[in-house]
């Protein structure tokens, strides 16, 4: 009998199913894009421009990290862009206007994002409003609140500057790594923003792969009903996922405020789409259950490299949108082709 069992059990061999293949594909695409622009323009592969690309990736990358978790549960978060802005404004109010210590202001900014995410999660898992609607609502609410809060100072909508606290700008633009890098690459002034992105990505990757929260994120996205029947408190974990997504938005808010040296209350709409695009290019499936942090980071780099390259080539902004849009579709199509061939 045992012999028979063995013959029956010969597992179907998985061909190219591994996530490694997807990441390889995305990474190859990034290299190709990079090579093409280097070839087309002498200004592209310069240290300053590469730093520019890294810097441009930082904010979108951090947003995309949070969105990855949400999309892996088969959900969506449209509010990340405006929640980011709201967080920036909160940091602006506390640090610049109220004169609170910078670390406290940063904490408040990040927590603003967490709270917004928590509310998203509660609306979705307890009130059972579909994620698209719930986060669309939060997107507008956060946008409105950011504008309202920005009028507190002068009565009109206007940016809050951090000119009185120069140290705040150093958070993103300073470079604690340059003393280390100086002997090898003196021109390469790696800003802290990039460091923050990579640390955040490492944390996210750890959470997704190694912790209970990450496991349930995948399980819920793969088969929510089955997860529930396994005795997992799905509502609670889903709430936690949206709260985590919001926390990353909060961090992105602090980062963008630091980078622009101001909290711009009108900014933020459209950022969610860039973040979603990065996640999707990175191979995360909108139907849930599947996705990696490394993929998302590569996706974010693909978008900012493209934008940067096209700008250097003097392609008008209108056309940059067209190209980025086509790339998103192409990336997902390639992924589908790869899966179908199994």
């Amino acid at each position, binding site marked *: *009998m045992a012999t*028979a069992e063995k*013959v*029956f059990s010969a597992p*179907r061999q998985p061909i190219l199913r591994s996530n490694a293949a997807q990441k390889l594909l995305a990474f190859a695409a990034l290299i190709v894009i990079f090579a093409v622009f280097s070839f087309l323009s002498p200004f592209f592969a310069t240290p300053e421009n590469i730093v520019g690309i890294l810097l441009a990736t930082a904010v979108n990358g951090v947003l995309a990290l949070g969105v990855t978790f949400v999309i892996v549960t088969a959900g969506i978060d449209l509010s990340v862009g405006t929640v980011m802005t709201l967080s920036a404004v909160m940091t602006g109010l506390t640090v610049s206007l109220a004169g609170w210590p910078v670390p406290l202001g940063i904490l408040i900014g990040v927590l603003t994002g967490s709270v917004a995410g928590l509310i998203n999660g509660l609306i979705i898992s307890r009130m059972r409003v579909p994620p698209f609607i719930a986060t669309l609502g939060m997107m507008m609410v956060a946008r409105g609140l950011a504008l309202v809060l920005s009028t507190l100072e002068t009565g009109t909508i206007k940016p809050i500057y951090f000119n009185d606290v120069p140290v705040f700008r150093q958070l993103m633009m300073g470079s604690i790594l340059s003393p280390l890098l100086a002997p090898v690459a003196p021109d390469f002034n790696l800003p802290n923003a990039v460091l923050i992105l990579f640390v955040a990505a490492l944390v996210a990757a750890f959470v997704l792969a*190694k912790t209970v929260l990450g*496991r349930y994120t995948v*399980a819920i996205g793969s*088969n929510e009903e089955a997860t*529930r029947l396994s005795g997992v408190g799905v509502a609670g974990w889903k709430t936690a996922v949206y709260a985590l997504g919001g926390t990353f938005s909060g961090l992105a808010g602090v980062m963008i405020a630091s980078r622009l040296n101001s909290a711009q209350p009108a900014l933020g709409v459209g950022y969610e789409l860039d973040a979603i695009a990065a996640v999707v290019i990175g191979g995360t499936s909108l139907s849930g259950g599947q996705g990696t942090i490394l993929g998302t980071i590569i996706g974010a780099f693909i978008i900012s490299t493209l934008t940067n390259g096209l700008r250097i080539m003097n392609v008008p902004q209108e056309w940059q949108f067209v190209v980025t849009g086509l790339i998103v579709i192409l990336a997902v199509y390639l992924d589908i082709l790869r899966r179908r061939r199994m």
Partner: protein
Amino acid sequence: MGDLLLKMAGIEKSFPGVHALSQAQFELRAGEVHALVGENGAGKSTLMKILSGIYSKDAGSVRYQGKEVEISSPRAAQHLGISMIHQELNLMNHLTLAQNVFVGREPRQPLRFMLDEAKINAQTQALFDSMHLRLDPRTLAAELTVAKQQMVEIAKALSFNSQVLIMDEPTAALTESEIDELFRIIRQLRSKGVGIVYISHRLEELKQISDRITVMRDGHYVDTVDAKAVTIDQIIGMMVGRAIYESSPEVPEQPEQAVVLAVRGLNRGTAIRDVSFVLKKGEILGFAGLMGAGRTEVARAIFGADPIDSGEIFVKGIRTAIQSPRDAVRHGIGYLSEDRKRYGLAVGLSVEANIALASFEQFVGSLGVVDDSKVRSIASRYVDLLSIKTPGIQQLVRNLSGGNQQKVVIGKWLTADTEILIFDEPTRGIDVGAKSEIYRLLNELAHAGKSILMISSELPEILRMSHRIVVMCEGRITGELSAAEATQEKIMRLATQRSGMVAATENSFAAKAEVR
């Protein structure tokens, strides 16, 4: 048999438009296998879902280990030591087998929030070993066949060390050898004092495995009997509440000779290897073989659902390139899939929409508007004909019982009225009454000149229905038998005729087949 473990009494449950359970009752002793039987929609799954915390009861009481309990969630049921293997597969495709088994109660190391992958892999391996299941715990669930997934679900339920284990049609997708293995495990659990609830439509199994049998009909409790003391006919009588007409296996008559479908040299990877056969007009061609022999793969390839590497398909003598299910339907081929949830049904749509789904052209009027009244009348006809138990044709398919969902798929392809019909395990999960209805329908269709390719793992069904039988093993056709010469032993021998197989295995199979 041990002490009384569980007693459910006066259970009531209603869904909108359906009184699913009324005054239902059930009891279970420690160390007994208690079978629960009844027609499709009788309320078996609903009663057990109440016990495992998925549905809440409207009224009634549950006493467990001498105490009155309220079971409010699956988690609460697990804590009480009650676990359930569901009728529909419930694995998470993107997780590994080990992750699936331990989801919801992962051992965490070294900090509270971190997972210990090595530990769950080791524990799952031990569990699989104890079940003689040769699977790697690190495989993704998506890579397994339906039968293997079912075995993993069983492993998962076992890992809870439950006092009460509910199995809702666990054998529907299993091969003979897997069923033997399952029965061995069930007996082992029984001797340890676990109470097992066993739901099945395969009544022959009940005599083998169960100690007592409880029969339900239309949400009511009928009776509980000693399994040794009743005959299968008596059980059927209690289930349907009337004498059932089991048509005697009719001698299939010789079909006409015209070939409607010819398949030549079909290949795809290792799943389909050089498959050639013909299907004649008015013929029922049985496809026999063990689970995973490649029969479904062949069907899906003919239907255009999967690409092929090479091979030719001729419909009525004309070579046809079928690239998609749409092409197949246009050439008059219909396919009733074995996995109804995944491929056969839009569970979020109504019964009538599903029945009309494959043949909307029929219902479109001159202005391109769907003729609702026509859809309604056809849908109602099949609901009656197949005795689909539903409060109305507007009911969402999701809310039907498992067996009734299967009937809806059959209705869909009958409506499409295609010349060639491929039925993949048409009676899986279907009760005895409806089964003979379906057999009668298949015969009528063949009489009317339709050609039917019927895949089935139940040998009696194959023997009873087919004019001719093709047997597959490991992607190859290993033989063809006429209705007159076919026997269970011959089919089993062909079904296990693998290339380079150890002789001993074949003998053990042949021996097993003879015993049956």
